[in-house]
């Protein structure tokens, strides 16, 4: 059954092509059937493959399927080949399953939109590219999937192209991720030049054997790959694009900017973990980036008033946790958190979608209120998602995965107390802004009336995801065992905090955040307005609101100079060389024509002068 592996990316790709070409002529129902059906089949196949893989795992723990050789020039022979092991299996199953649910959801959410077939074409193309990325056997095919998902995120963010702002947001996302991709491409060159291949498994063995720990090549390659991962997963230096990416339709935000694409960077680092273990400073950098990002994004999320931007910042901060886990070598924990995060973050976005749809596209949370009674389904699913996100102890999956990360940070040789403190502070921040969101949106007075109730197609996926957000975390042990077949075990340094201690700490942090939010927003709502009143508060609020001023800073540092340079050199400077030549010729003409005065004696004088000079030359020679 494993031979059907190539169908998982192929079916969505084919249906994307079909929808792109025939879409406009098909009826909406037909488009929905083709669009969602293809993802359903692909999800089903991946589940079947998962079953056979778990049932009878292949000998080497991995299954490779080569379709054809893509390019073969001298020693460079990347093939279109898929590599399935525990890591890519878990991610493929999660991605395809969550995509299926979101496609189901968007059948109803996008109904009536004039670009219906275009939307499903892009979404299918996205799933195809994401699965190609996950199953890629060599880094070049991974790069193909990598750019493909970047492209689809650009297309989907700018989906409602009539509004120029969406187009610009899409362009910003594509360019910022492409900055990361360029770094990653150079990383690929380093790897190929020094190790002679791009096939991931051979690369890892070659790196292991040829490069000593801490070798400059390993550091360069790992750092460049980290650059790519940071770009795609919207981590610290390159995270400004994700909040603007919320301009796209909500299912897109749910699928791309919450569950799947943004975790591509995590997958890349997990997949090339050998490189990072060979370059300890870069691995530590990953941890630091993760910690810093989770704090920054947490604070920014506090101040947002658009429901989707809050969730976007929370995504950035949760991926910060995954980077933190990767940084300390807890590969399994990061992937585990990826899975749970995919469930509850997609759920939160879908619920937010229901709310937005119900309040005819109202985004500002302060103009929503009291939806607890109006939209019970949205409320309960949102609540479960929120608790999973914040990490309600012992019940939600989010708690288990975050607890595992905190424990790994505490016990890993690389993890310092600083990182652990950041982690716990992050938990407090997460629960604070999550419950702020819930209290403001679902409690208090009804600001805007609910226009229409969500249909079944929107509610069912949300409920399934809610169920998964709870159940997902229970069977941690077997999940760990499965991942360890593909990823190295987590090396515990002795003397760290025990399992129980970190989980208690996490639970306390959760309740602290909950209480703070309850006190600030339900107990006396005037407190938040007072905080915003005084000058220091207002400055801080503006600073955090604009993502710590990163956007403003990048605009000044990069965008303005390039735009200025382009407009300044619009008229080709090099062309002026040739214009100069032309005008010099005209000048010579004008000078010479001035000598023709028409006076006989003037010419006679020149003739005499000429003859005198020639005579002199003759004499002198």
């Amino acid at each position, binding site marked *: 059954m494993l031979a059907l592996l190539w169908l998982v990316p192929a079916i969505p790709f084919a249906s994307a092509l079909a929808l792109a070409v025939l879409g406009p002529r098909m009826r909406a129902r037909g488009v929905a059937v083709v669009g969602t059906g293809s993802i359903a089949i692909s999800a089903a196949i991946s589940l079947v493959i998962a079953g056979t893989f778990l049932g009878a795992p292949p000998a080497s723990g991995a299954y490779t399927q080569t379709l054809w050789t893509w390019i073969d020039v001298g020693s460079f022979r990347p093939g279109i080949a898929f590599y399935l092991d525990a890591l890519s299996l878990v991610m493929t199953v999660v991605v395809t399953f969550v995509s299926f649910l979101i496609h189901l959801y968007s059948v109803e959410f996008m109904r009536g939109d004039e670009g219906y077939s275009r939307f499903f074409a892009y979404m299918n193309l996205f799933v195809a590219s994401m699965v190609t990325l996950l199953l890629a056997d060599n880094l070049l095919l991974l790069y193909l999937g990598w750019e493909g998902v970047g492209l689809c995120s650009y297309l989907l963010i700018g989906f409602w192209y009539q509004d120029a702002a969406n187009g610009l947001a899409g362009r910003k996302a594509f360019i910022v991720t492409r900055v990361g991709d360029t770094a990653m491409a150079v990383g690929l060159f380093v790897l190929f030049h020094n190790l002679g291949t791009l096939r991931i498994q051979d690369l890892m063995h070659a790196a292991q054997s040829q490069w000593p720990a801490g070798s400059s090549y390993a550091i360069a390659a790992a750092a460049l790959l980290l650059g790519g991962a940071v770009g795609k997963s919207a981590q610290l230096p390159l995270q400004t694009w994700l909040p603007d990416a919320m301009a796209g339709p909500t299912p897109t935000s749910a699928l791309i900017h919450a569950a799947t694409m943004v975790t591509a960077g995590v997958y890349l680092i997990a997949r090339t973990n050998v490189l990072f273990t060979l370059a300890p400073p870069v691995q530590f950098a990953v941890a630091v980036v993760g910690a810093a990002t989770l704090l920054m994004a947490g604070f920014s999320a506090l101040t947002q008033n658009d429901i989707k931007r809050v969730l976007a910042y929370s995504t950035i901060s949760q991926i910060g946790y995954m980077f933190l886990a990767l940084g300390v070598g807890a590969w399994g924990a990061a992937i585990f958190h990826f899975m749970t995060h995919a469930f509850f973050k997609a759920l939160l976005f879908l619920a937010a979608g229901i709310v937005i749809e119900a309040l005819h596209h109202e985004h500002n949370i302060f103009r929503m209120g009291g939806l607890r009674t109006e939209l019970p389904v949205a409320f309960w699913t949102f609540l479960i998602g929120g608790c999973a996100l914040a990490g309600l102890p012992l019940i939600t999956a989010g708690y288990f995965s975050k607890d595992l990360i905190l424990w790994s940070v505490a016990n890993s040789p690389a993890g310092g107390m600083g990182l652990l403190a950041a982690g716990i502070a992050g938990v407090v921040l997460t629960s604070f802004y999550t419950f702020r969101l819930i209290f403001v949106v679902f409690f208090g007075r009804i600001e805007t009336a609910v226009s229409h109730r969500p249909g079944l197609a929107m509610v069912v996926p949300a409920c399934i995801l809610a169920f998964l957000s709870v159940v997902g975390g229970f069977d941690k042990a077997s999940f760990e065992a499965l991942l360890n077949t593909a990823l190295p075990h987590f090396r515990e340094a002795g003397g760290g905090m025990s399992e129980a201690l970190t989980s208690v700490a996490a639970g306390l942090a959760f309740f602290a955040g909950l209480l703070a939010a309850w006190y600030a927003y339900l107990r006396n709502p005037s407190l938040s307005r007072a905080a915003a009143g005084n000058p220091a508060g207002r400055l801080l609020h503006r600073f955090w609101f604009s993502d710590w001023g990163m956007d403003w800073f990048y605009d000044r540092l990069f965008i303005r100079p390039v735009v200025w340079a382009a407009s300044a050199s619009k008229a080709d400077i090099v062309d002026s060389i040739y214009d100069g030549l032309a005008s010099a010729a005209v000048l010579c003409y004008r000078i010479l024509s001035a000598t023709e005065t028409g006076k006989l004696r003037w010419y006679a004088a020149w003739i*005499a002068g000429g003859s*005198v000079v020639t005579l002199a030359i003759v*004499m002198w020679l």
Partner: protein
Amino acid sequence: MTIVFYTASAVAIIATILMLTRANAVHALLDLIVSLLAVAVIFFVLGAPFVAALEVIIYAGAIMVLFVFVVMLLNLGEPATRAERALLRPSMWIVPSVFAAILLAEFIWLLVSGDVPPSAVAGIEAKETGMALFGQYLIGVELASMLLLGGLVAAYHLGWRKVPQTEATHVSHP
């Protein structure tokens, strides 16, 4: 013989200078004729009687007469000479004489530096020149004749158009 040579050349140079500085065209012409005759004498001294004769007959005779004829035709008269004298400012002589001085210096320098051995004894008779003319230089003579024909046709053509117009508009100048 050399005294004759030197006097003749002196006369030639002085006549030419006079010709240059004259305001009245006819006076200048007459000075020019004197200078040409002086050159004819020099030719004679140099033992080239045939050429001297030619110089007198054709150059001084024919060409200069043509000149006089044209000057008469132009009928310049007193106002023209007065206008001419107005133009004869001393300042106009500076530039040409600078050129001329350099040119003369070059000639002299060339002549002095070259070692000119003494010349042959006897002059060259007309017979010898005639034989050369129709022997070696036969083509040259034919070409010269064509040149003269060209000059004739051109002069005739230019002259012809003018006659009817001048009849109609000829007004005696004041």
